[in-house]
């Protein structure tokens, strides 16, 4: 008989959670609630005696100082009650920890049928509240119908004896697992089955798959294990591995590129090879600090003689778009498994985030599944719980609003790890599997979660996208596993390690078995959350928090003893072999038997038509615009723009100081409120060296040319780590592409060829900048299909494509954190310098956007000139003759000078005539042009001579000085003061938009 335990704060205590709900109801929907009291409900579905129930109530689940609880509904006054609980099969983290606590208290073990479920009851009070109001609060604030269910009770409907009633969201499949075979009588038949089963096989792959299974020697070998036609387990394996998400077919494709202006044609065969791996290999060969790139879960660079760092970036767009919290927490917790599975395993030392969403206050006719505001709230919270509960500092982040992301949002997550250079006397970055070693699955159990997640993210989002792939990450389980695996690594127990991400076991076992050239795995050994999963589901499930590890049989005992100490579930599910076969059984029956080299066989390359029309021929032009007269108001309005204004409320929710390693924080300045160019961490507590990390995203420029978008993003990300103190010789990059669909279709994607050309151009810029800056790509990923089909006002659906987006992350070595700088101006009397040329490059700038224009003159990167400047900057910083350093980014000089002044709470006296410029001959161009390659520096008068010596021959000039009076004063080219604004007024303008959010 299940019991429901209700727990609530004592009535005299503030219910902060309830107050938060009331606040959102008011500000989002204008629903006025006088009060909201929240009640936690534990539904205990287990055989427990009355004595046990009372003990667990008092000893675990009720804090006598602040809480009251009861097995009967608590008497709390209300006008309406909303109950919210999970749907069956959704990960209930507090439910799982409740089981742990109860098991520990009574020394018992829950059976598979027993569980604890958590849910919430909200007691709402207010005048004139309607059922509709309650439904709105339930649906739009408290619950997402993909993962949650809810009930609304009026006063009349409420039975004080039964309360919300007993709801047991238990998964009951009542299904006998079975393997089925699939007919391959014809290409059409296989395609039909692929569509029917949601396999998402590419039509071009089908002949290759069929011809393999029809080969005589294959048929012969399969006969011996009792197989003939392919099984669903096999086809799922192929489908997962061949998906664009895992296999990167787009980047490996062949692009037929035509420049329609010149008629010039070129064939780009494999963008990944020509623009990413070839340049990186060449650069890595010149740079011994690049330890391991292009093959593992993350790239590896040298930190010092005894330590390496590992880095990678991911996106989790499709799941976040449907269930923002679940998608984002699964994203960040998931990317943290990549460094854990790099080499023999890294400790996680930092994470970063990038959120691209529609305008937060969007109120137009299009109806995305989740409004941008709700989406952003959920994403922020997901990354908060995922990062904070993992004990990993969230180092840096950015938010970008653009209507293009209404179709699908972007959630970028990046993970930085650290590992010893040597493990058990051998190189830590190397690993392999060998015949005879055990295949061990560690961490969480397997359920129906995430099935077809990989294939869903390779599709455009529509109302038919199966929602079943949304999950909720469990940082607690993963943190235990993280600690366990590091200890196992240090004891030399790990031969190979990789994470279970997209594709689940099919991908982690499939890929790791390539090293030994075979494996035999028994799916019946895989621990399940509940019975009734088909074999193929076990094989491809993406249930989170799992790693696949190869261990030598002689280490089995020690490995499992350590797992027990850390309370981590581990299971031997098979052995690695050198049979050349991927051999999967369920108990004694074979359900997959394919050649290991099947996936490297000759699958047809994807092909794309790419057509480029240069922007001037697309009708883009500079606007006809006279000079503004009120520069003060313009600056304040620019500071208030969503993509410029303060987002401190997000940063403060993220623990950026755990591990005690923070050296430059994401927020700096006298009042600790201004975003830093980058963050610096000192990951080895006994060392003075650090790693700088930062990132950039500038999708607006893609509206003109994705080549220059890419170049500017990379230059910005490089400048950001330079500004805090990174050595320009030891910077690495991570590219994360998010692109709308590039496959041309006359009806569905009429501008596909343009988007394909943009991708080619972006990759060319990536190659060019890597070569120019000697910048190796340590890691990277691509996520295509950033489009959505949104309902409009009249029932019509609109395709909304995101701007072509690249997020670029940089890491840079800091030899001694003592030379790190922050951007806040430090002392009155210091001289202000601008380094780098300001050009007439307002195209797609924040300024033009503010005035409703796009323009044509997008910023272009002069990499060679920049590099000389960057080296001088580094010299000036290491000699400590710069007091503050700031890169100039989106919004241009005006915005970033204002930020430096605000951060230092000091004024600036500046003269635009002194700004090193080329072709920018108007005040607005000088103030708001977004030319790349520039810095703002302040220098103590005593350092002036040395500073100018270092920058001799470079475009750097003193443009004014720091003053005590907190006023930003700027003299225009005409010699008059065109800006005179109090620092406090600027701060107010910059903070007012999101200042009320916590």
């Amino acid at each position, binding site marked *: 008989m299940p019991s429901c335990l209700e727990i609530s704060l004592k009535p005299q205590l503030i219910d902060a*959670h309830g107050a*938060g709900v009331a606040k959102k109801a008011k500000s989002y929907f204008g629903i006025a609630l006088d009060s909201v009291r929240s009640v936690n409900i534990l539904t205990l579905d287990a055989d427990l005696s009355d004595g046990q129930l009372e003990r667990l109530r008092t000893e675990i689940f009720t804090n006598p*100082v602040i809480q009251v609880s009861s097995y009967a509904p608590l008497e709390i006054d209300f006008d309406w009650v909303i109950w919210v609980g999970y749907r069956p099969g959704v990960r209930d983290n507090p439910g799982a920890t*409740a089981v742990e606590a109860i098991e520990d208290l009574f020394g018992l073990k829950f059976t598979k049928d027993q569980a604890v479920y958590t849910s919430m009851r909200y007691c709402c009070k207010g005048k004139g509240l309607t059922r509709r109001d309650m439904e709105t609060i339930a649906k739009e604030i408290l619950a997402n119908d993909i993962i949650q269910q809810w009930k609304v009770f009026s006063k009349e409907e409420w039975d004080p004896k039964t309360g919300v009633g007993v709801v047991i969201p238990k998964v009951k499949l009542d299904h006998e697992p079975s393997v089925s075979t699939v007919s391959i009588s014809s290409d059409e038949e296989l395609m039909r089955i692929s569509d029917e089963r949601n396999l998402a096989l590419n039509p071009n792959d089908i002949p290759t798959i069929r011809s393999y299974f029809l080969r005589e020697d294959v048929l012969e070998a399969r006969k011996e294990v009792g197989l003939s036609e392919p099984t669903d387990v096999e086809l799922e394996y192929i489908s997962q591995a061949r998906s664009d998400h895992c296999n990167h077919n787009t980047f490996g494709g062949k692009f037929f590129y035509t420049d329609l202006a010149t008629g010039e044609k070129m064939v780009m065969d494999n963008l990944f090879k020509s623009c990413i791996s070839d340049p990186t290999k060449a650069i890595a060969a010149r740079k011994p600090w690049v330890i391991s790139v292009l093959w593992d879960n993350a790239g590896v660079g040298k930190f010092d003689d005894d330590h390496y760092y590992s880095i990678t970036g991911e996106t989790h767009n499709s799941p976040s778009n449907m269930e923002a919290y679940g998608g984002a927490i699964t994203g960040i917790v998931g990317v943290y498994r990549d460094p854990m599975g790099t080499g023999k395993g890294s400790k996680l030392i930092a994470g970063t985030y990038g959120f691209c969403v529609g305008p937060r206050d969007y109120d137009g006719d299009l109806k995305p599944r989740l409004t941008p505001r709700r989406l952003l709230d959920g994403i922020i919270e997901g990354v908060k719980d995922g990062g904070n509960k993992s004990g990993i500092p969230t180092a840096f982040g950015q938010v970008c609003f653009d209507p293009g992301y209404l179709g699908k949002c972007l959630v970028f997550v990046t993970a930085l790890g650290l590992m010893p250079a040597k493990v058990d006397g051998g190189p830590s970055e190397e690993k392999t599997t060998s015949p005879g070693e055990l295949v061990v699955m560690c961490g969480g159990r397997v359920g129906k979660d995430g099935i077809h997640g990989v294939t869903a993210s390779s599709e455009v989002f529509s109302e038919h996208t199966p929602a079943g792939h949304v999950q909720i990450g469990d940082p607690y389980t993963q943190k235990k596993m993280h600690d366990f695996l590091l200890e196992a690594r240090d004891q030399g127990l790990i031969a190979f390690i990789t994470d279970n991400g997209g594709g689940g076991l099919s991908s982690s076992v499939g890929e790791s078995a390539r090293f030994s050239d075979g494996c035999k795995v028994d799916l019946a050994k895989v621990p399940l959350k509940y019975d009734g999963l088909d074999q193929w589901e076990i094989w491809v499930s993406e249930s989170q928090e799992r790693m696949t590890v190869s261990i030598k049989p002689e280490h089995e005992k020690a490995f499992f003893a350590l797992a027990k100490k*850390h309370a981590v579930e581990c299971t031997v599910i098979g052995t690695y072999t050198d049979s050349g076969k991927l051999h999967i059984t369920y108990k004694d029956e074979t359900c997959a038997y394919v050649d290991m080299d099947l996936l490297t066989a000759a699958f047809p390359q994807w092909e794309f038509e790419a057509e480029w029309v240069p922007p001037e021929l697309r009708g883009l032009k500079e606007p006809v615009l006279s000079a503004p007269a009120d520069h003060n108001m313009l600056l304040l309005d620019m500071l208030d723009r969503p993509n410029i204004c303060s987002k401190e409320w997000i940063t403060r929710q993220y623990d950026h100081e755990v591990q*005690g390693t923070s050296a430059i924080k994401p927020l700096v300045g006298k009042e600790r409120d201004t975003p830093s160019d980058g963050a610096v961490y000192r990951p080895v507590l006994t060392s003075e060296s650090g790693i700088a990390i930062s990132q950039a995203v500038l999708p607006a420029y893609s509206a003109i040319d994705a080549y220059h978008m890419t170049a500017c993003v990379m230059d910005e990300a490089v400048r950001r780590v330079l500004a805090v103190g990174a050595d320009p010789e030891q910077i690495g990059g991570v590219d994360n592409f998010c692109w709308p669909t590039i496959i041309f279709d006359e009806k569905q994607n009429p501008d596909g060829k343009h988007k394909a050309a943009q991708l080619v151009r972006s990759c060319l810029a990536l190659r060019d900048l890597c070569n120019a800056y000697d910048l190796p790509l340590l890691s990277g990923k691509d996520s295509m299909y950033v489009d959505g089909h949104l309902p409009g006002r009249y029932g019509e659906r609109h395709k909304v494509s995101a701007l072509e987006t690249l997020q670029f992350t940089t890491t840079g070595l800091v030899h001694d954190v003592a030379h790190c700088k922050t951007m806040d101006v430090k*002392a009155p009397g210091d001289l202000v310098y601008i380094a780098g040329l300001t050009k007439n490059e307002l195209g797609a700038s924040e300024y033009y956007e503010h005035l409703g224009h796009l323009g044509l003159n997008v910023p272009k990167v002069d990499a060679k000139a920049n590099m000389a400047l960057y080296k001088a900057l580094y010299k000036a910083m290491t000699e400590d003759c710069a007091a503050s350093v700031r890169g100039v980014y989106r919004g241009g000089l005006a915005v970033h000078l204002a930020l430096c002044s605000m951060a230092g709470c000091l004024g600036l006296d500046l003269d635009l005539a002194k700004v090193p410029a080329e072709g920018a001959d108007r005040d607005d161009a000088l103030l708001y042009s977004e030319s790349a390659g520039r810095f703002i520096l302040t220098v103590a008068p005593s350092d002036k001579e040395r500073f100018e010596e270092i920058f001799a021959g470079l475009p750097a000039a003193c443009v004014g000085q720091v003053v005590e009076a907190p006023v930003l004063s700027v003299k225009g080219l005409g010699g008059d003061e065109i800006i005179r604004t109090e620092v406090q007024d600027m701060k107010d303008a910059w903070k007012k938009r999101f200042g009320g959010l916590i």
Partner: protein
Amino acid sequence: MKKVRVLVLTGYGLNCDHETANAFSLAGAEPVRVHINSLIAGEERLEDFQILAFGGGFSWGDDHGAGVIQATRMKNNLGGQLLEFVGKGGLVIAICNGFQAVVNLGLLPGFDNDYTSRSVALTYNDSGNFRDDWVYLAPNEKSPCVFTKGLESFDLPVRHGEGKLYAEDAVIKRLQENNQVALRYALADGSPANGKFPENPNGSVDDIAGICDPTGRIFGLMPHPEATVHYSNHPQWTRIKEEKKRKGEAMGDAVSPGLQIFINGVNYVRENQ
């Protein structure tokens, strides 16, 4: 010099163990990171240590109240050992999630030599959210707390969602009268925060940031002293450096107030045991 051994708890989602151990190393002690289960299994014994550190983190995901399940597990499996350790004069420092665990264990406030009763709670911040920021702290010079001895007003980072100290009026009154309130959230000049946000980041009653037991040997606090033992941990260090430079001074290697808290504990053991 006499060895001071410190047991730093790890496991089950705790996450400040490395930097807490590092802080004790810098303070001259010998820290050992010990998994809660190793202590339960008897692989390490509390009696071999002079200081026990409950560090920060998210034990059991902070589900069902921060520190609650950790306290239950330790009480059930190690309750006797803990009381023995405290009874013999061992020192306990409990930081953030550790503080939450310790009040749930009843090691604090420890009125009348009762180290098992829960009478103080650390609950959800009034703001309703997790917050990472730096706060000013005013130590109570009359407090018997051995860890805060000699400290003047200073600043430390806070990083929590459940740090609001709450107790019945009588309990608060007793904490105040016994000078068991060792640390209070303050304004920059050291005067009381008087509940003002964000100086008092969570709405703690009487701005209480840290309390000790009547002996002063058990100390719990929400801010993180272990995260500020290196000059570069301070949010304003680049400003401090430029200020000093203009006076012709170097950064120097002054002991941070965060580190001093650990040194005080270690020195106390050296001098008294």
